[in-house]
C-alpha cells in the first residue's frame, strides 16, 4: 500500500534522489559502534537532535493550554499538569528534555573537542555549534520563567542581574529582556515570544547550517 502510494508520487516527482541524497551516506568504521563500541561517543550529536525534536513537538502541544499572562500562566500550567490527560507526561518530556538537551550537547561538544574534530577544515562548524549552544541556553533561560512560579521569578531576577553586569550595555540588555523596569507582565510575554518564536527560528537555521556542513565535510577521521 505505502509502496504503491510512494511509487505513484515518485513517478511524477522523482523524489527518490532527494531523500537518497539526505539519507544514503557512508558511516565510517571508526564512528560505528558495531565495529568499535567506544564509537558510541559519536552518537551524542544525533541524540541532541533527537531530543530537540521531542522538545519542539512537546512544546507545540504545551502551547495548546499555556497562556503567557501573569494572572493565568501559573493556573494554566497547573491545569495542564494536573487535569489534562497525559499533561504530566507531556510537560515532563519538555521539562526533563530541556536538561537532557544541555547534557547531550555538552557531551557532543566534549567528543568534538577531544577528537580534535573542530580543527581545519571544520572550524566554521565548531563556531556554528557554539552558537547553537548559546541559543539552547537562551531557550532554557526563557522557558524557565514561563510557569511563573517563585522559582521562575527569582531565577529570572538573578539572570537579569547577571545580564545587568555586562560592561556598558548591561542596563540596556536588562531592560530590553525585562520589557520595562520590573520582572512582570511584559517580561513574561517577551520571554514567551523569544522562547517559542525567535530562538527556535534561529536554532533551526543554525541546525540546518550545522548539518549541511557536516554532510559537505564528512565526519572527521579516526584518532
Amino acid at each position, binding site marked *: 500500500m505505502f509502496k504503491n502510494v510512494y511509487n505513484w508520487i515518485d513517478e511524477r516527482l522523482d523524489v527518490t534522489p532527494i531523500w537518497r541524497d539526505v539519507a544514503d551516506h557512508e*558511516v565510517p568504521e571508526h564512528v*560505528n559502534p*558495531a565495529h568499535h563500541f567506544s564509537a558510541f561517543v559519536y552518537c551524542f550529536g544525533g541524540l541532541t537532535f533527537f531530543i530537540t525534536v*521531542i522538545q519542539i*513537538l*512537546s512544546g507545540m*502541544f504545551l502551547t*495548546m*493550554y499555556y497562556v503567557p499572562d501573569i494572572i*493565568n500562566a501559573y*493556573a*494554566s500550567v*497547573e*491545569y*495542564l499538569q494536573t487535569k*489534562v*490527560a*497525559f*499533561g504530566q*507526561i*507531556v510537560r515532563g*518530556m519538555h521539562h526533563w528534555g530541556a536538561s537532557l538537551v544541555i547534557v547531550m550537547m555538552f557531551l557532543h561538544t566534549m567528543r568534538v573537542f577531544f577528537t580534535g574534530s573542530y580543527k581545519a577544515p571544520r572550524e566554521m562548524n565548531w563556531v556554528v555549534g557554539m552558537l547553537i549552544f548559546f541559543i539552547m541556553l537562551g531557550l532554557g533561560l526563557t522557558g524557565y520563567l514561563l510557569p511563573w512560579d517563585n522559582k521562575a521569578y527569582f531565577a529570572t531576577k538573578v539572570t537579569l542581574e547577571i545580564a545587568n553586569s555586562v560592561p556598558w550595555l548591561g542596563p540596556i540588555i536588562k531592560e530590553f529582556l525585562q520589557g520595562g523596569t520590573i520582572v512582570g507582565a511584559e517580561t513574561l510575554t517577551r520571554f514567551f515570544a523569544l522562547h517559542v518564536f525567535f530562538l527556535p527560528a534561529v536554532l533551526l537555521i543554525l541546525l540546518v547550517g550545522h548539518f549541511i556542513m557536516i554532510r559537505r565535510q564528512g565526519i572527521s577521521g579516526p584518532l
Partner: protein
Amino acid sequence: MSNQNEHHEPSHKPPGRKEMSRRQFLTYTLGGATAYMAAGAVLPMVRFAVDPILHKKGEGEFIKVVEESKITDEPQEFSFELKQQDGWYASTATLTAWIRKDEQGKIYALSPICKHLGCTVGWNNDKSFPDEYHCPCHGARYTKEGKNLAVAPKPLDTYKLKIENGWVYLGGVEPNTEVK
C-alpha cells in the same frame, strides 16, 4: 550498514520456500522499532491535545430562576447566572430565558439563541410582526411557542425546567419538542 550484508547472501537460494531477505527483515525490524518509539513519544501528546473532547460534559444542574407566580401568558425575559469552569478559568455566565405559561398553564422556557446563526432573539421587538420573536441579524421570526416562521430552520430550543416549592428552575438547553 547493509552494504556488507550482501557479501554473506548465498549465491543461489533453495527453490520452493519464499524466504524473507535479510534486507527485508532488517527493514521491518528497524521500521517497527522506529514506529514503536515514535508512537511512544507522540501518542501521549495526541491524547493530551484531544483531552477537551474526551472530558465528561457536566450534567447541567438546575438553577433557581423566578417564582412560579410571576410567570404570565406573555413571554417575559429572565436572566440567571451559571457558574462555569473553563479550563483554569472560573466565571459566571449570565443566561437569559423567555418564560411563559401556555393556555393549559404549562410553563416553558425558550432559549433566546436564534436557530439560524446564533444571534439573540427578542420578544415583540419588530413593529411589523407583533407578538413574535424576532432576530435582528437576519430577520428570523418565531411564534410564541418558538416555532420557526421565517429564515430559521428549527424552532427555538427550550430549557429543561422543573418547579419546586413555587420556584422555576432551569437546566440545560435541549431541542424543542413541543412544536414541529
